[in-house]
């Protein structure tokens, strides 16, 4: 097992080496304003059997949870996803029913479901488009998930010996994380669990453990004149516990696909009813970099209660009136008619290219509208269901210069659902999701449903009225029958005869 703890401060806020106290088993320092990332790397044999047996049937797996509470991020950690629980994975070659995941899918769904306190139904995964990237995952799943409480408890039970208080404390802290990634692939044969705590006040503190290599970095975002547009830099202090007696200064730069556009957006429903309109309010209509092709995009993961109609989003005039360019991708299949309660797939992912109105020289705020459709939901008492649709990930996709390569960097996040839909030289400049009110980066909506409290008479009433109508029509038929039987009425026969 290896461990890496990284604190990342904003630019121009580095610490002197003397501010950190290093002992063979710990590191401590002042309270700073920073983002914190902790990464644990396990080899397969360090994992409980039930987990490693599932991973044996997996070629590649990324489980990502993102808080639905807005959070600030810095530098290399700005890669965003809609709030909720995402799974991307590719079944291994040896997995039973490798075709669509099959049995391995059910098994994985059960294990992950119990770990995160969610239920993954059979057949809920959708296929991702393959081809462009050999390393893109094959199957996708998403569902809203409020907290990591259940996962923290699960990890504590599986990984911490009962007497190890420090371990328990660390796992409890996961409950406060803003994002979590669990990644595995057959090439490294390693399971990486990465938790991220939002940019906020935190105390520098790390405790080493027997047999675990613990690396602590206290870094800050850096920009040097020699760095290129697509590169990120960091500088600061690195310490390996039990190995280094004092922190060593470091500075390095690396190309990064995820950058901060340094603007924000919010989202909210403007039209209610069964065809609601989600409005994105973006802070800036100016691309984050000059001189390259850039276009703003929104990547949605819609729960199965709501969907976008790709046919509606295919008319240029209509799209332009909503400040949209095109629907670039939508997962398949999206049933346009089925009620929510008969759906099997998790929902749908959609990538929309937005069209900022080009106004003056100055940066200006603008909006884009996305027309959506609600499914019929299970009836409730009271006649309404309350839903939340997570904000999309909004970013400017810009082309890096010809020949630019993006080798793996220490903070790399790939397989986010949308990165595989772009070319290999694309840089994602992320627009920060900001709550409209409160702290949630999800748009609430009230959905009208059948009111169970008033539905008591529906069965009997419908049957009675249909029978009444049937009886009335039958009675009229009977009157005709009694008057003139089933044959032709006599006068009409004579007129027929006359005609001939």
């Amino acid at each position, binding site marked *: 097992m290896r461990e890496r703890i990284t604190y990342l401060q904003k630019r121009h806020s580095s610490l002197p080496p003397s501010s950190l106290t290093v002992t063979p088993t710990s590191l401590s320092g002042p309270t700073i304003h920073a983002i914190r990332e902790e990464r644990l790397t396990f080899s397969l044999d360090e994992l409980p059997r039930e987990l490693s047996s599932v991973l044996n049937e997996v070629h590649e797996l990324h489980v990502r949870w993102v808080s639905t509470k807005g959070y600030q991020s810095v530098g290399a950690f700005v890669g965003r996803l809609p709030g909720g629980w995402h799974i991307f994975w590719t079944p291994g070659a040896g997995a039973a029913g490798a075709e669509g995941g099959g049995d391995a899918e059910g098994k994985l769904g059960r294990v992950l479901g119990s770990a995160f306190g969610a239920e993954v139904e059979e057949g809920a995964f959708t296929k991702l488009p393959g081809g462009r990237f050999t390393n893109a995952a094959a199957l996708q799943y998403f569902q809203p998930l409020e907290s990591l409480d259940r996962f923290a408890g699960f990890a504590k039970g599986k990984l911490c010996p009962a007497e190890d208080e420090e371990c328990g404390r660390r796992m409890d802290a996961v409950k406060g994380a803003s994002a979590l990634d669990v990644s595995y692939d057959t090439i490294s044969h390693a399971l990486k669990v990465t938790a991220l705590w939002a940019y906020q006040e935190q105390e520098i503190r790390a405790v080493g453990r027997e047999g675990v290599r613990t690396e602590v970095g206290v870094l800050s975002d850096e920009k040097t004149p020699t760095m290129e547009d697509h590169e990120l830099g960091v500088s600061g202090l690195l310490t390996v516990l039990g190995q280094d007696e004092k922190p060593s200064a470091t500075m390095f730069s690396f190309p990064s696909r995820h950058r901060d556009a340094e603007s924000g957006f919010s989202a909210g429903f403007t039209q*209610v009813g069964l065809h609601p309109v989600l409005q994105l309010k973006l802070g800036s209509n100016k691309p984050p970099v000059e001189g390259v092709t850039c276009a703003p995009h929104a990547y949605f993961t819609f729960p199965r209660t709501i969907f976008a109609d790709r046919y509606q989003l295919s008319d240029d005039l209509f799209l332009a009136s909503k400040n949209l360019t095109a629907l670039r991708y939508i997962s398949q299949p999206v049933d346009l008619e089925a009620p929510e309660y008969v759906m099997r797939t998790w929902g749908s992912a959609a990538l929309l290219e937005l069209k900022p109105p080009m106004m003056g020289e100055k940066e200006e705020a603008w909006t884009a509208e996305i027309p959506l459709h609600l499914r019929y939901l299970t009836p409730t008492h009271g006649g309404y269901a309350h839903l939340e649709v997570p904000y999309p990930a909004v970013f400017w996709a810009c082309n890096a210069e010809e020949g630019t390569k993006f080798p793996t960097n220490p903070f790399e996040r790939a397989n986010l659902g949308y990165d595989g839909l772009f070319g290999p030289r694309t840089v994602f400049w992320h627009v920060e999701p900001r709550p409209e009110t409160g702290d949630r980066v999800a748009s609430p909506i009230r959905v009208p449903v059948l009111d169970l409290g008033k539905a008591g008479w529906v069965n009997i009433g419908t049957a009675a009225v249909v029978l009444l109508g049937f009886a009335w*029509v039958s009675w009229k038929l009977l009157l*005709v029958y009694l008057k003139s039987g089933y044959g032709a009425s006599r006068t009409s026969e004579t*007129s027929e005869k006359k005609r001939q």
Partner: protein
Amino acid sequence: MAGQATTTPSSLAARFFHGRFPLYFSAAIFRLVFLLYGLWQDANSPVKYTDIDYLVFTDAARFMSKGQSPYHRETYRYTPVLAWLLLPTVWVTGSPFWDAVWFSSGKVLFAAADLVAGWFLERLLTMGGQGVRPMDGPTARRFAAIWLLNPMVATISTRGSSEGLLGVLVTALLWAVVARRATLAALLLGFGVHFKIYPFIYAPAILWWMDGERMSGAGPSKSSSSGPGPSLLSRLARFITPARLQLAVISLAVFLGLNVFMFQIYGTPFLIHTYFHHVSRIDHRHNFSPYNTQLYLTSAFPNLSALRIESVAFLPQLVLSCVMIPFILAKKSLPTAMLAQTFAFVSFNKVCTSQYFLWYMVLLPLYLPTSSFMENKRLGLCALALWVASQGLWLQQGFELEFLGQSTFVPGLWLASLGFFLVNCWILGVIIGDVVLQPKSI
């Protein structure tokens, strides 16, 4: 007739209906204006005039033009014939003008079908028979105008809905039957059922109507309607006439032949989307059907309800439209029987949308001349007002649900759909009662 033609009609209306040209020309111009307006709106407004269904049809035709199955288009739930008919809509010439013309060719086809249906209505009205004295041309055209100059009909076909094709199929079928052209009638019936399923309800009425006396031209048998008849077996033997056999065998062969042919080309998706879908669909989205709220409830809680109305809902519908109405009405007046059948089928259906209303509207001009709605203007206006008002009430509730987000499922939409259903049943009762009235009127 010749004498009538020489008299010069005085009033403007009389002059309008005097010859064929003014009516059909204005019906065509009427649709052309709608069509051009639609092109303008589609090109200039994000809110489209063209019906979503037309985009479904043309997308399906596009798949077909590439040698693929039309069922690649989601929600294409029709026979491949429709996509074939619309193949010209995907022709690309390179000139935006001609592309738009070709794209609209399907709407032109549907609008032309409207006109042909109107022409068949005029033919049927001037033929007489069927408990109706033959009408003179101008009077027949006045009634045909109810269809030809109906803005609802013109809108539906120029927006690109295919219901106009059914109008022409059904009126042509009726004309072929009344003109004793059994083979043509059988071809139309078989094709009609393949095209849209519901025309199968006309089969029992037509078969029952085609009795030996009528088809051979012999006088009516005394035992046709009353008195103790001969033995069951001989009555059965007398029922099976050559004309009836011809109709049954040919129409069935056409229906099955087309289905086998389509199945050969497009396989199971053809069967699933054209036919099985209509059996298995849940129909939970709000529509005019009285069963609608009930279906939403039972589809959401399939295990809870002991009474599964939807599994017996077809009984009153089919008993009325396929057994009782044909049996009692068909021999008295085939057009009225077919109108009543369609009315019953649509009103008692598990799903009912406004385009279904066109299915019976096309038969109205044949019934109205001898109806108590025309004889008693107040009754007629009252029926029309009730039909419109109960629909309006439903639409208002539907609007509150769909666009204002109010939970109007119960009681609003539910009661509105039941009210509309009862109004329809009342109108249906009047139509049925009118068959014994008919010979006296005109």
